[in-house]
C-alpha cells in the first residue's frame, strides 16, 4: 500500500470510509427492515403519507407508500451527514498536509504537483465509490425481504448517487482550501456552502415557482435521482451534471494549486502592517486570562454557527404557516390522520405542534457545534498546544474547566440569539406562538450541547482527536436515528431514553420539562467530572 501516493492515500481513507459506509448503510438497511412494521395497517400507511406531505420541505415524498419511496424520503435529511466526511477529506487533502508540513516532504519526491494532487484526488474518488458500494449492498440486504421491490441495481445506483454528491462537495472543499490559510477555515466555509445548498434546495418544495432557485444547488441534482423509488429511477443527466461539476471544481483547485506557493493561498491579500515592530498588545482583552483567550479562540466559529442556527430557526417559523395549510387540507375528511397527528385546535397550538417537530433540527445543529469544539480541545492537546500553557502556574483542572466554561458561554449565546431570531420572525410574519414555550425550546438546547461537549472532553482523555470526533458524530447519528425513526420501529422505552432528544421532548408544546432536562444536566455533569478527573491525572500527549 506504500507503492504510490494513490495507494497510500487510499490506505489513509480505509477506516473512515468503511466506518462511514457501514454506519450509513446500516441506517438505510434498518429503515427498510422497519418498513413492514411501519406499513402494518392501511391507517398507519395513510399517516405516513400525510406526514410525508407535511415534511416535504425536508425531503420530497415520492411514492412514500412504497418501501423504496419511504426509505428515500426518510434518508433525505442524512445528506448532511453523508457529505461531512468527503468535505473534511477535501480540505485535508492538500491544506491539511500543508499545515502539518508533510506536503513539503512529499513534493520533494520527483513527482509533479499536479500528479501528487491527482493521485490523492483519485484515491478520494475511489474511496467514495467503495463507500457507495458498501451503502448499496447494505441497503440491498435491508430490503431483501420486501418481495423483490428493492433491486441490487437500484441500491447500487443509490450508493453511487451518494458517492457523486460526496465527490462534488469534496471537490468544492478542495477548491475552497486553496483560498484559506487553514484547513479549519476551509471546512467551516464549505460546511456553510453545504448548509446553504441544502436550504436552497428546500426552497422549491416550500415556495411555489422557485425551482429555478433550487437548481442552483447541487443537492437539487442529487435529489433528482431516486433509484429506490419504483418507476422513478436514476436521473442520468443529473448524475452526469454532478460528475461534470466535480471535474470543474477539482480542475480549478488543481490549476490553483499548481500555481500558488505551498503553504500560501491562491489570492494573497496585502499585509496590513508590513513594518516590523517589537511592541506588545497590552490592551487586547482576549489575552488577559485563560477564559478570555478560550472565548477568543472560539469567537469566530461561534458567530458562524449562531448565524446558521438562528437563521434556520427564523426560517422554520416562517415556513410553519405553509406547513400548517398543507396539514389542514390533509386533515379534512381523514379522522385517521387527525388521530395520528393529534393537532390542537387553536392556532397557537397548531403552529407549535408543527414547529415542535421542526425544531428538533436546532439542537442537532447545536450539538454538532459542540462536537467541533470538543474536537478542538482534543486536537489542541494532540498538537502540543497545551504543553506551554500547562508549564505556567495554571492547574490542569482549571485549564479544562475554563475551556469548558467558554464553550458553555458560546452555547448559551447561540441559544439566546436563536430565541431572539425565532421570536422576531414570529412577530414579523404573524405566526402565533407561546413565547414562554419558545424560550423553553431555544434554551432547553443548552444542556444537550453541553452534554455532547462534556462527552467529547471525556473521550479526549483516551482518544485522539479524529477518533474522539468520530465517536461523538456516531453517537449523534445514533441518537438522531433512535429519536427520528425509533417510534416507527416501536423501540422499547429504555432504548428511546438513551437519546438526549428524548429528554429535550417537545418544549414548544409543553413548555419547560425541567425534570427531563435535569437528567441531561446530570449526565453532562457526570461526564465533565469524569473528564476532569481523567485530565488531571493523564499523560499529556507529546
Amino acid at each position, binding site marked *: 500500500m506504500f507503492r504510490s501516493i494513490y495507494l497510500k492515500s487510499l490506505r489513509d481513507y480505509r477506516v473512515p470510509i468503511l466506518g462511514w459506509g457501514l454506519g450509513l448503510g446500516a441506517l438505510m438497511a434498518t429503515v427498510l427492515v422497519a418498513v413492514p412494521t411501519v406499513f402494518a395497517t392501511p391507517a398507519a400507511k395513510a399517516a405516513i403519507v400525510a406526514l410525508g406531505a407535511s415534511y416535504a420541505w425536508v425531503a420530497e415524498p415520492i411514492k412514500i407508500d412504497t418501501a423504496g419511496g419511504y426509505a428515500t424520503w426518510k434518508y433525505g435529511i442524512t445528506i448532511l451527514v453523508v457529505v461531512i466526511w468527503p468535505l473534511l477529506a477535501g480540505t485535508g487533502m492538500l491544506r491539511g498536509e500543508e499545515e502539518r508540513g508533510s506536503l513539503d516532504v512529499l513534493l520533494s519526491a520527483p513527482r509533479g504537483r499536479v500528479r501528487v494532487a491527482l493521485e490523492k484526488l483519485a484515491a478520494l474518488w475511489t474511496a467514495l465509490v467503495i463507500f457507495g458500494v458498501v451503502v448499496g449492498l447494505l441497503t440491498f440486504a435491508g430490503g431483501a425481504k420486501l418481495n423483490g421491490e428493492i433491486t441490487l441495481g437500484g441500491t447500487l445506483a443509490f450508493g453511487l448517487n451518494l458517492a457523486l454528491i460526496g465527490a462534488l462537495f469534496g471537490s468544492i472543499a478542495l477548491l475552497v482550501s486553496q483560498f484559506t490559510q487553514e484547513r479549519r477555515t476551509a471546512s467551516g466555509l464549505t460546511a456553510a456552502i453545504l448548509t446553504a445548498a441544502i436550504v436552497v434546495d428546500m426552497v422549491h418544495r416550500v415556495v411555489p415557482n422557485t425551482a429555478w432557485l433550487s437548481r442552483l444547488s447541487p443537492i437539487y441534482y442529487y435529489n433528482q435521482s431516486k433509484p429506490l423509488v419504483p418507476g422513478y429511477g436514476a436521473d442520468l443527466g443529473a448524475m452526469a451534471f454532478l460528475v461534470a461539476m466535480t471535474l470543474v471544481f477539482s480542475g480549478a483547485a488543481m490549476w490553483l494549486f499548481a500555481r500558488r506557493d505551498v503553504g500560501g493561498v491562491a489570492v494573497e491579500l496585502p499585509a496590513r502592517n508590513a513594518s516590523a515592530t517589537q511592541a506588545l498588545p497590552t490592551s487586547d482583552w482576549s489575552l488577559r486570562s485563560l477564559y478570555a483567550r478560550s472565548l477568543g479562540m472560539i469567537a469566530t466559529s461561534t458567530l458562524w454557527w449562531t448565524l446558521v442556527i438562528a437563521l434556520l430557526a427564523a426560517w422554520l417559523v416562517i415556513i410553519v404557516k405553509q406547513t400548517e395549510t398543507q396539514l389542514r387540507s390533509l386533515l379534512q375528511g381523514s379522522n385517521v390522520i387527525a388521530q395520528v397527528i393529534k393537532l390542537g385546535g387553536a392556532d397557537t397550538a397548531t403552529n407549535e405542534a408543527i414547529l415542535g417537530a421542526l425544531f428538533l433540527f436546532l439542537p442537532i445543529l447545536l450539538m454538532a457545534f459542540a462536537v467541533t469544539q470538543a474536537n478542538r480541545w482534543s486536537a489542541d492537546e494532540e498538537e*502540543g498546544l497545551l504543553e506551554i500553557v500547562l508549564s505556567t502556574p495554571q492547574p490542569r483542572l482549571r485549564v479544562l474547566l475554563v475551556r469548558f466554561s467558554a464553550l458553555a458561554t458560546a452555547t448559551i449565546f447561540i441559544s439566546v440569539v436563536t430565541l431572539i431570531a425565532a421570536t422576531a420572525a414570529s412577530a414579523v410574519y404573524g405566526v402565533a406562538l407561546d413565547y414562554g414555550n419558545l424560550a423553553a425550546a431555544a434554551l432547553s438546547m443548552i444542556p444537550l450541547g453541553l452534554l455532547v461537549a462534556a462527552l467529547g472532553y471525556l473521550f479526549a482523555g483516551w482518544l485522539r482527536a479524529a477518533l474522539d470526533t468520530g465517536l461523538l458524530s456516531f453517537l449523534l447519528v445514533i441518537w438522531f436515528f433512535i429519536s427520528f425513526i425509533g417510534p416507527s420501529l416501536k423501540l422499547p422505552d429504555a432504548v428511546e431514553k438513551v437519546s438526549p432528544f428524548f429528554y429535550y421532548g417537545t418544549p414548544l408544546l409543553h413548555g419547560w420539562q425541567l425534570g427531563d432536562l435535569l437528567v441531561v444536566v446530570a449526565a453532562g455533569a457526570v461526564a465533565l467530572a469524569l473528564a476532569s478527573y481523567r485530565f488531571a491525572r493523564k499523560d499529556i500527549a507529546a
Partner: protein
Amino acid sequence: MSGSGKEAAVPDIIEVDKLTKSYGGKRGIKDVSFSVAEGEVFGFLGPNGAGKTTTIRTLMALIRADSGTARIAGLDCWGRALEIKRLIGYVPGEPALDRNLTGGQILEYFANLRGGVDRVYLKKLIERLDLDTSRKFRQYSTGNKRKVVLIQAFMHRPRVLILDEPTSGLDPLNQQEFDGMVREAREEGRTVFLSSHVLSEVEKTCTRVAIIRDGNIVRIGGIHELNDIKRYEITIAFAQPVAADAFARLDGVAEVEALNDGMAVRLAIQGSADAVIKAAARYPVVSLTSYEPSLEDIFLRYYERDGQAAKEAVGV
C-alpha cells in the same frame, strides 16, 4: 548527591531518583537518577529517542512516572506541580503555539497567565533576540518560532529554566545571544537544565553533564571529569617514511593510521602522550598537530560501541 563533579555545600534544586517511565510496552526511561545544584547549568545529553524529553516532561508533570521520584526545590514534581511551575521557565522540544496569534500576542498572553512580568525586561529580551512581534506564529521561520518560545521561558526570570533542545533552529548569532542569556541566568544564581544533542553547545554553557542512552543514565560528571575519558588526536609529519607499527603498541595509543605513504601518522590517544612523544623523537619530525577533542567525541564513544549511528548521536 548522586553523580560527581559537584561543588560542595550547594543545595540540590532538582533531585531525580530512580525515575522510570514506559509507554505501554515501549521503553521510555529506566531508573534515571541525578541531581542538579541550585545555580548550576546542567547539560542533559543523549541521541534522539534516548529519553531526554521523557525525563523533562516528567519534571514538568506533563507525564506521570511509573516509579521513582522527581523533585524540584524539594517539591514533588507531580503532587506539587502548581507550586513548581511558579518557579520554572520551560522550552518544550517541539514548541507548538496558536498559529493565528502574533508573537506579541503570545508573549502578552503567557505574561498574563504568569500573573504579570517585568515589562522592561520582556522588551529587552525581544530586542535582544530581534523578534518582530507583529507577525503571526504561523508566518515565523523555525528560528523565530524558537525565539518566541525562548522569550516566554525567560521573561519572568524563573528560578529554574528547563530547556529541551533550546537552540534548535537558531542561527549562530542568536545562539550566541542565547549563550549570553544562560550565562546571565547563572550569574544571577538561577538554575538551567538544558537538554541537547549538540555537544558543543553544552560544552560552552554547562558546568556538569549527564549522558542518557536507551533510557539509562550512562555518565554524570563535570565537564573536566568527562575530559579524562576523552581521546584526542595527534598527527605527526616526518621527513622520511616511518612505519605506523612503531606507534601501535605504545601506551595510550588507541588507533594508528598511516598517511601520505608513511610520511605521516595520525594517532588517536587516550590518556598520556608521553610514550608517543618519546617514540616520535627517534625520527626527523617536520610537524606535530594535536586536535583537542570536543564533547562530541566523548559522546560518540558511548554510541559507537553498539554500532548506533554516530551521526544521529551528534545530531549531524
